């Protein structure tokens, strides 16, 4: 049984005030997430990631298609007792303290007082909020609110956890803590389904990823497979190669870039690498390095998303993620 399963899930939104028209936010999404895996839903802004999560959590209704969570229909209230959810940019009740809010969240699951308190203590401690538990949430920073959001998503010890942009608003230490927490949860056998546009997080955490663009699933697969498929280039750096060598190497190389006395060559086919090295040795050129360049998730992402008319937007998303990481 799959933890999350969607079948032709489609969502159209009404847009426009006077002249209403439909905008397709999700277009026939077919997705299956296995139990115990960390699945990342990637895509640029407006790709349909949040819409997917909102449909799964019955905050919006699909225009067509179906979905099942833990083998149950979405409107099965009992199923939601086994699920945790962190909304994107969460906002909670200003007038409540972290302790009161967690208590309220626990009550929604019908947890008994002693059990509730035990879990609240553990979660607030785990997320570094124990000392701020009696402060009203309106006094919390964005990062602290994000942590409260994660804590409330775990109050019912869920089997399946949906996290919508979990790293958003966190400082580098916070991001690392959340990453560790996700890995810990995975170690406990929980299924984690999260959306992000920060590719390095997905690369570090996900067993599989799905790439959404303009509501369509552009690619989906195991991260190892995606990245292995990407080992297509071997980078060879030679010192002071002669012109004859470069002429002979031309059929085997994709690009040639000079840096001072050195030249960086990209060899497309793995079978050509030995030939390139043999030629270099024959012409007495210095071999500085030989590096099989693996495709990064970012390359894969750009390959999938960048080919569509929405490329500029996706590039922007990647740039944003890079900038965010740089900032942090």
């Amino acid at each position: 049984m799959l933890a999350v399963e969607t079948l032709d899930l489609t969502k159209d939104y009404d847009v426009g005030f006077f002249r209403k028209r439909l905008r397709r936010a999700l277009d026939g999404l077919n997705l299956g997430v296995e139990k115990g895996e960390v699945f990342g839903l990637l895509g640029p802004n407006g790709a349909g990631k949040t819409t997917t999560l909102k449909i799964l959590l019955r905050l919006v209704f699909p225009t067509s298609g179906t979905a099942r969570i833990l083998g149950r229909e979405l409107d099965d209230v009992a199923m939601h007792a086994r699920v945790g959810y962190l909304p994107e940019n969460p906002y909670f009740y200003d007038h409540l303290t972290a302790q009161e809010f967690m208590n309220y969240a626990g009550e929604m699951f019908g947890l008994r007082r002693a059990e509730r308190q035990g879990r609240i203590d553990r979660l607030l401690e785990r997320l570094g909020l124990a000392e701020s538990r009696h402060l009203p949430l309106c006094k919390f920073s964005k990062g602290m609110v994000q942590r409260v959001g994660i804590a409330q998503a775990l109050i019912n010890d869920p089997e399946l956890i949906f996290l919508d942009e979990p790293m958003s608003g966190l400082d580098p230490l916070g991001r690392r803590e959340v990453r560790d927490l996700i890995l810990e949860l995975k170690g406990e056998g929980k299924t984690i389904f999260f959306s992000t546009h920060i590719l390095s997080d997905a690369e570090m955490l996900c067993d599989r990823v799905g790439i959404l663009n303009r509501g369509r699933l552009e690619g989906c697969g195991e991260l190892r497979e995606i990245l292995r498929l990407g080992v297509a280039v071997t980078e060879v750096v030679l010192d002071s190669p002669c012109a004859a060598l470069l002429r002979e190497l031309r059929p085997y190389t994709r690009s040639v870039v000079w840096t001072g006395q050195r030249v960086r060559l990209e060899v497309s086919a793995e079978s050509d690498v030995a030939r390139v090295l043999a030629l270099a040795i024959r012409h007495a050129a210095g071999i500085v390095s030989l590096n099989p360049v693996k495709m990064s998730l970012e390359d894969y992402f750009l390959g999938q998303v960048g080919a569509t008319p929405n490329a500029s937007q996706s590039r922007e998303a990647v740039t944003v993620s890079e900038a965010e990481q740089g900032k942090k």
Partner: protein
Amino acid sequence: MRRVASIALHTFKESVRERVLYNLLGFALLLMGAAILFGRISVGIEQIILVNLGLSSISVFGLLMAIFIGIGLVGKEIERRSIYSILSKPVRRAEFIIGKYFGLLFTLVINTAIMTVGLYAALFYQKRHLSSADLVVLEAVYFILLQLALVVGLALFFSCLSTPILSAVFTFCLYVIGNLSADIRWFGQETGSVVIEKLTAVIYYLLPNFGDFNVIAQVAHGEKIPGYVLVSNSLYALLYGTILVSAAILVFEEREFR
């Protein structure tokens, strides 16, 4: 049931921590204090003035609280997106709405109780004693609460459907029309036009009839409220309130949170 109680308690907490509530409550109690002064300058009818002003204050300030807190019950949760984390839990949308309704009603009962104690204190200060005849004030307070129960239902219904500002406007308009519905029907009958008569009759039966709950003048004059009025008004409020909350649930069940 436990979830409904929890949502109601949370709504009560949220309402109690609203600063506007204390301002209104303070102002209402101040007005009751002022009623004593008005009574002093109204020779012979001190008690009538005091009870009249006191009950009117309870009614008006209760109405303001019901509208201003009621319109935010759902609207604010949607606007601030706090509703996402609640509805993603094993909570039925109907439980959420019922919990919100009773939470605010409970807040209004507590506030009305405080204001009623204030009114009795003012009465005691004026007369230096209280008698069983003064218990009739409680009947008027009970009717005010029934009225507030309907106003909360209206505000909740509109807040499921519209923005907080529009909800306030709609609720207030219906409150005013509902207070005048008997007069509107009488006007329709007087015109002699069948169309207008039928139209005003529809308005009379369709909109909540708040006028029937207004017994402040009778109570101020010491008149007892007949038992059948107590029963019929209670049943009317129960029926109409149930319809309003059910309508709010129906609308909310279809609502999307984009």
